[in-house]
């Protein structure tokens, strides 16, 4: 087990790794995996910053309710925990009020 990473992976899936870019860094993540979980497992700690105080945030509920794992995918703000890993996904940290309103 890689002790630098905060999660232990009980059944590492190395067969279906695909490249995903998160904030400019390339990660090899299992295709079809939950994006929030895969990024956490890969060592990503900050998913976005808040619009009010730029405080760092990361997945909190993992069930699509808290919106703390918001990221930007193809220009649209999405919940990482409600997204599946796909090949070539380009993900950026969200620095907005969330939802889909970019003017907030």
């Amino acid at each position, binding site marked *: 087990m890689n002790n630098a990473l905060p999660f232990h992976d009980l059944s590492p899936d190395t067969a279906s790794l695909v490249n995903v870019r998160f904030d400019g860094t390339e990660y090899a993540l299992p295709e079809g995996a*939950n994006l929030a979980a895969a990024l956490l497992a890969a060592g990503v700690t900050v998913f976005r910053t808040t619009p009010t105080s730029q405080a760092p945030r990361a997945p909190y509920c993992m069930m699509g309710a808290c919106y703390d794992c918001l990221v930007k995918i193809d220009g649209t703000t999405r919940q990482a925990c409600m997204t599946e890993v796909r090949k070539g996904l380009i993900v950026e940290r969200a620095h907005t009020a969330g939802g889909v309103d970019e003017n907030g």
Partner: protein
Amino acid sequence: MKTADLIVIGAGPAGMAAASTAADAGLSVLLLDEQPRAGGQIYRDVKRAATVRGHILGQDFTEGLPLVEGIEKQGITQVFGATVWSIDATGKVACSVNGQGIVARGLRVLLATGALERPMPIPGWTLPGVMTAGAAQILLKQSGLVPKRAVLAGSGPLLYLIAAQMVRAGVPPLALVETQVRGDFIAALRHSVGALRGWRYLLKGLKMLRETERAGVLRYRGATGIAVEGERQAKALTFTASGQSHRIACDTVLLHHGVVPNTQAARSLGVDHVWSDRQACFVPRPDQWGGTGHDRILIAGDGAGIGGARVAEIAGRLAALRVATDLGRMTGPERDAQAAPLFRQRNRELAVRPFLDTAYPPYTGALSPDDGTIVCRCEEVTAGDIRRFARLGCKGPNQAKAFGRAGMGPCQGRYCGLAVSSLLAQENDATHDGTGYFRVRPPLKPVTLGELAATEDQTGRAG
């Protein structure tokens, strides 16, 4: 527009059981769920996870398998990845699937939207590395991930379950920091008749606790002053127990002090909710079949009041029987014959709840947080802000939005609603019912204009 006799929103135990029972009675069912696969949170991804991780997750998890298999039958159309954002009292349901808007109409709609973790506002709870205990369960069930250096904090049997599962996974938590005190257990003893009827639950809890203690996991009780330390990431949990200050360095903090009904969908329809002192949350008051004030809308499962997975499953079946009778596919006597054993079973399963609710009350430090603690995570509104709003004349949560945006972020009040209502009630010396809750309106979840536009096209702008 898609049509169905019954639209079920949520494919957890209540929704799956309802869909299956309704289909057996000859109804057409449209089953919608946000997740990519059936199970809800309690049986999340059970079909895949049971085979690879069933030994770690335990029998209570793998029991969900027959339910998931039960929805693979004629009459049930399953749509996963469906985010429902609007439901109206006529039975019209709008949702997005893969960025495409869909509108469906059901002769009846069953809300089976389950539970949320009770918000636990403590200092530092917004830091990366702090998650709900439920989130840890989801990571384990769906993704096989276990945090390596985690502390569990709060109260309730779910903490024992997670601790035991982490021990079985070979990655025990660093500590179990519980907030309930001995007096809670003594108070709970007046519900011991019910507890004895639910002895299987208690025995299971004790077994899990023993499993955790045998693994050498530190356990503290009656913890107060719980806070998460860290700047950009959780570094440690600090608290006081038995008069001593403690600091446990960790990477992950898992919080839990009970679950509460996810009332967003029901509230958006104006279904009446009342405060339950015992469950310390607002609950709708459906009739014994799950019927609400709206003829076409029913509600079942934890969203109707916390009862757990088995109670949810029973409630789903009862609601389906009611719908089948309403729509003329079953006679009243047929329905009652099938329902009688379900009612008995439900009473048996619910018997333990008063004991559990009293023995594991919410953490008082999070029900009345210090002024500096954030309660609205999205808009970063603190408990002190809410108290100040009250002193300025704010009587209820909807006014609090105007005073300072509490509840106006993307989570739409899901993780601050109860805290905001409680703080205003405390500060104004008012009741929870008098203080009320956020008014919930569609869209229930953020939806893109593209999705809205696509929806209109599909329905020919007929609405």
